[in-house]
């Protein structure tokens, strides 16, 4: 052990002579650590020249491409290249590549798009991609919806399930104030504004449950509920609860419930009123994309 730690032992052997070729025929660097010497094998010349060439090339980069950050800007480079400009070029190319089909989509009625297998598959593909980017955050990746955000696969439509109705909803949104043609229709806040008291709300909720055949609480006064319903709700939701798509009043007699079908959820809706908001897309998406979206949603299965 002490031999290993005694550093000069290598020197003692006298073999650290840089000029003396070692067994390999190559001289050493003259260093010796614990008798271990380092052969003097310089980098190959071709490697060095490649390395120098790379340095020169890199300097060229500074001048040609954006390179050096400045205080409030950066050096732009002779080529004026920008990754954002590159994306714009790519997107324009993509648009040009699709233009043949998109002009056809623009020129064709929604119903005729769905009758033409080629247009249908293109519109569904484009609609599916646009849906994933723009609609999925609220309606879900599979358009399955969430509480307050309608499931677009089913056949229950608040604002109409024909392809044209869907396109209108996409274009102008729902309760979207910036768009004058938006779908509008707001349910009053019966509880919060004091139109109905809590007991009345519970009574009418029982009646609403009974409209679609759901079980009601024991001893519920359905007759009183019916009277309250006729006075407060029937104007929009209809006498039998069939709803009214003109003003976005949901059908209360079917099995699909946007906010849940238990009594507490229904009471909450009567208390608060209001309704969900969807943005208008006509300023953000082009006509062909919106049409494709309408076809996609309409052909998910629930379209009328």
């Amino acid at each position, binding site marked *: 052990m002490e031999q290993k730690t005694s550093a000069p032992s290598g020197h003692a*052997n006298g073999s650290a002579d840089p000029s003396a070729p070692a067994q390999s025929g190559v001289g050493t660097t003259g260093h010796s650590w614990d008798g271990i010497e380092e052969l003097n094998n310089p980098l190959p010349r071709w490697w060095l020249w490649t390395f120098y060439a790379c340095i020169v090339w890199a300097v060229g980069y500074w001048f040609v491409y954006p390179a050096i950050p400045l205080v409030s800007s950066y050096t732009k480079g002779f080529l004026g290249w920008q990754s954002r400009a590159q994306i714009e070029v790519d997107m324009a190319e993509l648009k040009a590549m699709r233009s043949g089909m998109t002009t056809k989509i623009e020129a064709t009625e929604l119903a005729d798009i769905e009758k033409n297998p080629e247009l249908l598959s293109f519109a569904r593909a484009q609609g599916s991609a646009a849906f994933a980017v723009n609609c999925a955050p609220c309606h879900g990746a*599979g358009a*399955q919806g969430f509480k307050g955000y309608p499931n677009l*696969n089913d*056949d*229950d439509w608040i604002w109409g399930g024909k392809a044209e109705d869907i396109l209108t909803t996409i274009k102008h949104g729902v309760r979207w104030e910036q768009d004058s043609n938006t779908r509008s229709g707001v349910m009053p806040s019966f509880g919060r504004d004091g139109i109905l008291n809590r007991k009345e709300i519970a009574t009418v909720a029982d009646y609403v449950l009974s409209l679609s055949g759901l079980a009601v609480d024991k001893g519920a006064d359905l007759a009183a509920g019916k009277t309250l319903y006729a006075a407060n709700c029937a104007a929009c939701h209809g006498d039998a609860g069939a709803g009214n798509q003109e003003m976005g009043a949901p059908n209360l007699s*079917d*099995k699909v419930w946007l906010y849940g079908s238990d009594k507490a959820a229904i009471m909450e809706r009567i208390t608060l009123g209001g309704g969900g908001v969807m943005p208008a897309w006509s300023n953000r998406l082009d006509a062909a994309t919106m049409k494709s979206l309408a076809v996609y949603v309409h052909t998910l*299965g629930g379209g009328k």
Partner: protein
Amino acid sequence: MSVPTSTSFDPHADEPDLPLYEARKQIYPQSVKGTYRRIKWIILAVTLAIYYVLPFIRWDRGPNAPNQAVLIDMPHRRAYFFFIEIWPQEVYYLTGLLILAAMALFLMNALAGRIWCGYLCPQTVWTDLFMAIERLIEGDRRERMQRDAGPFTVEVFALKLLKHTFWLLIAWWTGGAWVLYFDDAPTLVLQLLTFQGTATAYISILVLTFTTYTFAGLMREQICLYACPWPRIQAALTDEHALNVTYRYDRGEQRMSVKKAAALRSAGEPVGDCIDCQQCVAVCPTGVDIRNGPTLGCIQCGLCIDACDDVMAKINRPARLIAYDTDVNIKRRQSGLPNIFKPIRSRTILYAFVIAAVGGLMAYQLVTRAPSTITVIHDRNPVYVKLSDGRIRNAYTVRIANMLNDPRTFVFSVLGLEQSQVDIIGAEHASQGELFITVGPDQTRELRVLITHASDDKREAPVALYFEIRDDLDGRRAVGKDFFRTPNTVH
């Protein structure tokens, strides 16, 4: 305790330190005539002819498919080989072909050594071709050795330039023929000549020109010695009964001059037939000495057999001092036993069996494969949809493939769930309750299929559904399976 110096640990301390890499020795193979040379010429001609001509052979597949016999159509994702058309999902046929190729290689090796290396390998074939051109322009072994040793004159330069020009032309033609397998050959030739081919085509040709020129012209045996894995594998796979190009040392040793051998022979002494004329080494394309026994460098092309036979004929000794033989037989002859040949051994039987089994399986698959397929994918999200009347609906993406070159109409039906409603988005027409789907020639078509069922289904397990398509004309069927799921079956 004292630690020994590092040199005393080194078992090779007293040996000279050899360089790790051997400098290449230029090989000047001499021309030779004989049986094996003739076989090699024939194989060279046939294989090159196949390679260069095959893309131009036509094969009529009707109006909706290309008429090139052998074509790999990348943009349309199809591969054609005469009467066979392969879709991307059938690429397992390629796996089968690779297994067959490997097994055929092993079988060849078990029977007669490196037949592949010596006669069939593209490296051998193109190197042979390049050597023939070299010989035609620069002369045979001796002439070239003298010229290379002499001064570099204008004449030498001109000859070399001519040789490399021809090499590059062949290399370019080789690369050019390769790309013809990937597009309609006559059209592509015209495009390439008028500089209207794609960049991919030109770059592929350039790359293959470079590799052909480098491999067959410049690197030659270096590829076999250093780049190719097969010599290593081959050495591990061979056995004592495999025929190999063998120097029959039982007959050849002791080597001596013709004169000395004649004297000893007349004195009744034992004499070897090898006169150490080095002809076997001179003709060898990889520069090995076959008399050292089987080596990694020997590609077993048999040219040394031809060279040696020539010499044996001249000195009036029997031919085949070098021959396809085994070491077992040499040992047997030395102990006075007759030769044995065992082409049928456990390993050759095994290889032949695997070849027959894989080949048979592939042929069976090919003959019985369905001309149409149907695949079904259940919507993952949502798994089911509750409709306003309480019924449950499942949605499926169905893809129907028509693998024939004519448009076909299929009758679509879903079996397995009684009293369910089947809707197809974009189906052509229904008549008498049947759904008709038309799929274009050699195409697929995707459909969205909706299945709606009553809400009072209390089954706890998903119901198996069978999506069936039946060819409206010939009645052939294809079936895809999936499940119908309800709130009870989703946990």
